[in-house]
């Protein structure tokens, strides 16, 4: 066997070991070494050179990136997740005719969908969705994300929150937590527009907080422009900050009419 490949597999074994031990610092360290080593293989995307060990190399590389993605969820690093996922993607999309499908494929795709949902990147979410085959859509991991999105769009936030209990994979939990936050932000944004003010009690219920304390902290951190007066939350200030300009409609109408008259006269 190719010595380089052996080195990678050995390193990868060590990585997996630390991964099981939840020694994430060591994992990240090993991972970056692995990635550098992977650049030495010419069979990997984007070159796809036909080397004798191509299948083996591709498989191990895919495995490494799959682990990397999971690791990034564990260490709660969304940027790393995105990076690793994009590097992993060619293995699913372009190398599918060379490799047997990975068992991890759908969970990871689902994770990515969830991530997009969390980051509120709905357009990209749908783009990803369109790229999936109909069988993939049947997969519970994907289905979960799709349903979540639907609830999210409908505004059925309680369903979103309750879905946390039915996650198909334990790595999803992290994103579900984040999703709750996203939902809260959405609600906050809507209430801002919908109400002039809300009583603290109503606000607490609306924003799904269990205590006043949590609500106050949230307001302080995220929406410092809200005012708390007489036991109510006033959103007025936020509205004032962006006053919409009045359209001089009457003047415009007059002008347009005069133009029309002139035009008629010319013709």
């Amino acid at each position, binding site marked *: 066997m190719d010595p380089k490949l052996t080195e990678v597999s050995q390193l990868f074994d060590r990585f997996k070991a630390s991964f099981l031990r939840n020694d994430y610092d060591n994992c990240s360290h090993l991972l*970056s070494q692995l990635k550098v080593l992977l650049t030495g293989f010419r069979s990997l*995307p*984007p070159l796809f050179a036909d080397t004798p060990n191509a299948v083996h190399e591709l498989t191990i590389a895919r495995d490494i990136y799959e682990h990397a993605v999971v690791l990034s969820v564990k260490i709660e690093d969304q940027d790393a997740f995105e990076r690793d*996922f994009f*590097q*992993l993607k060619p293995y699913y999309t*372009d190398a599918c*005719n*060379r490799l047997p499908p990975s068992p991890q494929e759908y969970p990871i795709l689902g994770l990515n969908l969830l991530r997009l949902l969390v980051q509120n990147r709905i357009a990209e979410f749908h783009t990803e969705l369109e790229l999936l085959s109909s069988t993939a859509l049947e997969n519970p991991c994907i289905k979960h994300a799709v349903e979540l999105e639907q609830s999210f769009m409908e505004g059925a936030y309680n369903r979103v929150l309750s879905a946390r209990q039915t996650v198909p994979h334990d790595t999803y939990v992290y994103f579900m937590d984040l999703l709750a936050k996203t939902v809260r932000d959405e609600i906050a944004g809507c209430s801002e527009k919908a109400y002039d003010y809300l009583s603290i009690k109503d606000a607490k219920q609306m924003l799904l907080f269990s205590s006043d304390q949590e609500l106050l902290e949230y307001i302080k951190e995220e929406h410092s422009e809200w005012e708390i007066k007489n036991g109510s939350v006033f959103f007025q200030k936020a509205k004032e900050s962006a006053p919409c300009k009045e359209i001089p409609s009457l003047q415009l109408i007059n002008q347009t009419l005069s133009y029309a008259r002139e035009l008629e006269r010319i013709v």
Partner: protein
Amino acid sequence: MATTLVSSAGGMLAMLNEPHLSLKLHALSNLNNLVDTFWPEISTSLPKIESLHEDEEFDQHQRQLAALLVSKVFYYLGELNDSLSYALGAGPLFDVSEDSDYVHTLLAKAIDEYASLKSKATESSDESIKVDPRLEAIVERLLDKCIVDGKYQQAMGTAIECRRLDKLEEAITRSDNVQGTLSYCIYVSHSFVNLREYRQEVLRLLVKVFQKLPSPDYLSICQCLMFLDEPEGVAVILEKLLRSENKDDALLAFQIAFDLVENEHQAFLLNVRDRLAPPKTQPSEAAQSKPSDADSTQNASANGQDDVQMTDGDSAPTVDVPEDPIETMYAERLNKIKGILSGETSIQLTLQFLYSHNKSDLLILKTIKQSVEMRNSVCHSATIYANAIMHAGTTVDTFLRENLDWLSRATNWAKFSATAGLGVIHRGHLQQGRSLMAPYLPQGGTGGGGSPYSEGGALYALGLIHANHGEGIKQFLRDSLRSTTVEVIQHGACLGLGLASLGTADEDIYEEIKNVLYTDSAVAGEAAGISMGLLMVGTGSDKANEMLTYAHETQHEKIIRGLALGIALTVYGREEEADTLIEQMTRDQDPILRYGGMYALALAYRGTANNKAIRQLLHFAVSDVSDDVRRTAVLALGFVLYSDPEQTPRIVSLLSESYNPHVRYGAALAVGISCAGTGLSEAISLLEPLTSDVVDFVRQGALIAMAMVMVQISEASDSRVGTFRRQLEKIILDKHEDTMSKMGAILASGILDAGGRNVTIRLLSKTKHDKITAVVGLAVFSQFWYWYPLIYFVSLAFSPTAFIGLNYDLKSPKFEFLSNAKPSLFEYPKPTTVPTTTSTVKLPTAVLSTSAKAKARAKKAEEQKASTEISSAPDSTSSAPSGGKGKSSGEKDGDSMQVDSPTTEKKSEPESSFEILTNPARVVPAQEKVIKFLQDSRYIPVKLAPSGFVLLKDLRPTEPEVLALTDSPSSTTSAAGGSATGLQSSSSAMAVDEEPQPPQPFEYSS
């Protein structure tokens, strides 16, 4: 397994964000390979890659890689400027030798950028414009690569464009074929370098390179030097060659001199001549006796070896006769070369050629004469003009002498032009010119016998005879000018003086003409204005401002017009230098001065095809309020474009359909001028509809232009020539045709058969320099719109279509060469024949093939003799020596027979695919391509030129030489000089006769 391709660059883009440097590098290099497909995806990550380029932590290579990637993406996005600046940042990674669109585009961009920066820097002479050293490095890398790859032409072109003379020099010296490269470079510098000053710089460099060569191409050097106006250099070279032991060098010197003469730069030639050092000991008697001795020794050396060592060894015998033989030889050669440089030799030879080969068809003239109405003076004088043009330079004035009675109807100005016409006919007859004109010239004192009109005309005629070579006649003309106060004589004298001292910028003459101008007489003043221009041609002197001031002061339109043209002439060829003056003239209130401005544009940018000039002219052609200005603007396009005749029909094609007849007229003449003598098919197609225009003067212009285009084109090469001839005849014979177009048709027939059918109109010499006399001639000619006598200026543009081979003694030896094409393609038009007993109206005559047939049988024997001579070239010299020096007229006949032998062969057998021509021979421009020199000939040409004057090297100098052309018109006309009437009834044998060939009736009946 099918090759797998990635479907997205996303993975690699994501990898760019990895913290590890080597991963980034890996991503960059992969992206760099993928960029051609995935640039849209990558373009969204541009800021990231740009920041990588600027990242100080990165090492040099990675940053450059990032820059290259960014550059490529920008290239695909169409942002070439950004792309270029990043490509510069990529340093050595930007591979100039890569064969991709990206690299090609960016290189072009880089060169453009660099060239524009460089030219901006030199133009403003401002140091503040700094050229990016990286840009410079890229261009240099490209140039070096071109040189290494052997793409010298590319390298040179780029170097010239970028003003990198150092690189240009390198490219030339390192090329494998230095001579070829140099000549290419000369060509490029003339055709593509628009700035005059820069072109001179390039040429100066070329001369420098030339001189460094072990065996310099003196012909080219001298051409360059002429362009730079450096007579000293030429003189030094000529002197060196003349002093050389080797006879070949002397031949080369003569050849150089002839080539220089062809460019017709009188002032320069005189300058060169005066700079040639006189021989050290002026031999008095020795000059006559010694040369033969010296020659024989020289011949031996020339025969044996051309090597320098050989001649060194050969110089031993010269020691025996110290100093003398070399100096004698030098003196003798010097005399010859001075003769050549003064133009006398070439003029005389041309004269001989035109005289002996004259094929003009008097019957055409006779038809014209009979068909035009007597009282119509316009057509009457047009016929006289046509006659003069037809016989320009042939000295054959039979027609005039036979029709003295008819001629006497010319009165006043018609008399003036009739007399001046003699000057055209005798053009170049330097020795006899004055005695020929003597009967008409003003007699001593004021009140001579003749009318002032013929006297003025005679002075004008003298100018035409001595045009551009007026050394001998200048003084006489000045005296005549001074001693008269008659307007008409002043008019003629001014024109004559201007012509004779063309471009000499003689201050004294200028002052005298100025005095005439200040008399403020309309007739004399007009001529004075033109004359001042002729005198100052191409000097760009500040005299122009003086003239401009006077043009503003005077009331006479004629004077203003003369001055306007004169001013235009002074800026001839000055290009950008003339811009201020042109601006001044074109913005003037007076349309006549604007009209002069058009001429100034035309002449300053003659033959440069300069875009700015063309744009300006087109602008005036459509926007000026005066028809005169518009007409001239279009016409001027012809001058600007004559170096590139193919372009003109395209550019003026729209204008030729203008609603304004003046513009159409201008378009016709523009095509006529720039395509003169080319027979260009598009030009003819453009002119054809104009010859049947609804407006009479447009028809006139179109007919003249057509004749100019078709001159010397045979019917065999373009059938439309025959059609055109018939059309002319029809117009002339038609009683109801307008006078204007009739006049056009008469002039057109004159131009079509100009100079005894042996000349063409040529504005460029064979070395692609502009012929100043020819251009000036046509410019003034185009003034005939206002003043008919100026028609004669067209004769300045005529150049003989001849191959004249000369030996060391500047005589034409018997020498044969091959024209590798069907003879009928280039033959003379067949002479028109008289229809059976001329009675009332002449019908268009059919050309009888029998006349050719007749000739064929009559000369069959001679033909065969000739062909045997051809087949065994070495024998040819021995077979025909009996003629000897005397050279009977029979021998001469034999020569001319061989020239038109094609007609004879045509009937009997399928036409041969080649033709043997005998020195001196008529070689029309289109024929030049097919001229070949025979391998085993006794003489070989010094320069492989298919026409013009060519010096021949004698390979067998010991054998007696047989000369081909010795009879000259001077012998016959010298007799005629005394008795003005009885000129050459016997010797002008050939086509001069208006009767058909004597044997014809006999042959016809058989």
